[in-house]
């Protein structure tokens, strides 16, 4: 294997990326545009502003000797500034407002709420004598952010009501990590989506590889190269490396664009470095899928269509879409899910780079990438060069 040949072929591919307007747009301009558009659409631009939730409240604990507890709970909900409380006098109207999308959540404080807390303080170590009640919480399932944030914030307000903010610091064997809940008050939907942008941008490498390989095959360029001493291994390594370079540039562009619109991932330089690393691993996946698409395709145009067979599932099951049920199972087969998951863990949850989950994700992407690229090379050399 000769380095000069590999570098010459990489140079040829990178020049195509910068000189062909369509390729330039898809690989380098598109990630920037995508970041700005999603940032604008989902609250990233002007980031740092406090996000609030419209919450309906029905307080049924308005009579009796212990109503000060429900008043205190309502005060705690209101004082957080995260909730914009709208009081309702009946359940039906509140539920209707939630279903019509006028509310992010609807809380019902039950009758006897204050009595429950009093019974707790009467015998804090004897649950058998407590008066149990349940707060009903309904959240708009169409709002990914409300589903994620509201229950935790209500829980926090409840704990403050029962124990007070000072008493939360002492005497309990189990601690509730309230600072994390406070942090979540500044998150926008963009913060949840941003990690997916990194995978989203790199997904299109598959199409470029498939188009490029079929073009070179159809135009006789592969044949021409095969009349020179360049080996198949040198050619395939150059294809892989040039796409890895593009993946690194894409991550840098997405990061720079995201920073420019106020995105601040909850990680440090090591976490940013990890983003580059996992994007490199993902570029192997993209090249592998690209080679398989090129093998199947009879022309560059067909390659574009075939590429979407690999691109679309990864886009919808592995980047932005909220997962659950059957989609959760399907997503496990999508390499993009693991890059999104790792970056979400780092950028949103603020996990350290030593976290086992991100390295598990990295291992999955790397192993899939290597396997796909080997399969892609074998298929392309066997069936795709003719």
């Amino acid at each position: 294997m000769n380095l000069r040949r590999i570098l010459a072929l990489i140079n040829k591919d990178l020049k195509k990326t910068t000189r062909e307007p369509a390729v330039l747009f898809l690989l380098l301009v598109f990630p920037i545009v995508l970041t700005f558009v999603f940032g604008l659409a989902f609250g990233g631009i002007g980031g740092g502003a406090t996000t609030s939730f419209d919450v309906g409240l029905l307080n049924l604990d308005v009579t009796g000797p212990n109503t000060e507890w429900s008043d205190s709970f309502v005060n705690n909900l209101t004082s957080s500034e995260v909730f914009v409380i709208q009081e309702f006098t009946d359940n039906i109207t509140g539920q209707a407002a939630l279903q019509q999308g006028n509310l992010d959540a609807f809380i019902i404080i039950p009758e006897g709420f204050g009595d429950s807390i009093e019974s707790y303080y009467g015998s804090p170590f004897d649950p058998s004598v407590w008066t149990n009640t349940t707060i009903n919480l309904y959240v708009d399932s169409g709002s990914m952010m409300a589903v994620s944030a509201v229950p935790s914030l209500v829980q926090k307000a409840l704990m403050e009501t029962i124990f007070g903010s000072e008493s939360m610091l002492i005497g309990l064997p189990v601690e509730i990590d309230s600072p994390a809940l406070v942090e979540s008050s500044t998150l926008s939907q963009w913060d949840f989506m941003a990690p997916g942008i990194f995978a989203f941008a790199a997904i299109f490498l598959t199409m470029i590889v498939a188009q490029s390989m079929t073009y070179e095959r159809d135009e006789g360029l592969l044949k021409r190269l095969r009349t020179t001493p360049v080996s198949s291994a040198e050619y395939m390594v150059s294809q892989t490396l040039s796409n890895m370079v593009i993946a690194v540039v894409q991550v840098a562009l997405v990061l720079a664009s995201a920073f420019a619109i106020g995105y601040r991932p909850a990680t440090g330089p090591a976490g940013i470095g990890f983003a580059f690393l996992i994007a490199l691993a993902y570029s192997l996946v993209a090249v592998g899928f690209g080679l398989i698409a090129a093998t199947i395709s009879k022309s560059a145009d067909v390659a574009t269509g075939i590429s979407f067979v690999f691109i679309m599932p990864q886009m919808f099951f592995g980047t932005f879409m909220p997962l659950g049920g059957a989609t959760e199972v399907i997503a496990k087969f999508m390499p993009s899910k693991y890059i999104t998951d790792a970056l979400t863990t780092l950028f949103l949850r603020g996990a350290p780079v030593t976290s086992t989950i991100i390295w598990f994700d990295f291992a999955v992407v790397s192993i899939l990438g290597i396997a796909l690229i080997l399969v892609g090379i074998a298929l392309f050399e066997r069936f795709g060069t003719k």
Partner: protein
Amino acid sequence: MSESAIEITNLTKRFDDITALDNLSLEIGWGELFGILGPNGAGKSTAVNILSTLLEPTEGTATIDGCDVVFDPDCIRKIVGVCPQEPAFYPHLTGEENITLMGDMHLVPKDILKERIKTMVEKIGMEDHIKRRAKDYSGGMIRRVSMLMALINDPKIALLDEPTVAMDPKSRHAVWDFIRELKTQGKAIILTTHYMEEAQELCDRVAIIDEGKLIELGSPTELMEKHQAKNLEDVFLKLTGKKLREAF
């Protein structure tokens, strides 16, 4: 260096039930410019593809400077320059970058490569256009660049498949001069063409093949005398019953 530049012995290539090349035997010497003429589908490109290691023969053998096309393709790729019938080039690269890429594939030393490109480009009359993107070239320009891409490694053997198609007369004559100079350097050259005057003007010997079989072999003068013809076009007409250009 082996005695013969190219030795082809009983070369046969079948694609399913079609015999593209049928028991072809040829010997081509160093410094010889050898033409292969034949109608479309005669087997010319099949022969060139086998010699350039892109195809494996069904039967028979072919060696280039002693290297077997099947068993030692790496040896052949180092010493052969192939100019394909359809010029393959990267449109987003300039003419110079396309040629340099091929030079890099052959590991031509950088300083020699630069100097060689300059010299060859001047000889072929492309100096005003070589830094333009190839996608903006005319058909004739592309052919000329394609030939330089094939010859940038200063190969011992050149396989030129229809190198002057779609060229204007001035460019064609520049290419003819270039090919003649290659011959004086002692290179063996195989040229396929459907321009009879080109074969007559340039080739030391020509092989006429039809339906994969060799039907005549000799120098243009010998063939014209043997068949009492005014030119190679007439020779071809007498042998195959069809005009060469029509046959293409």
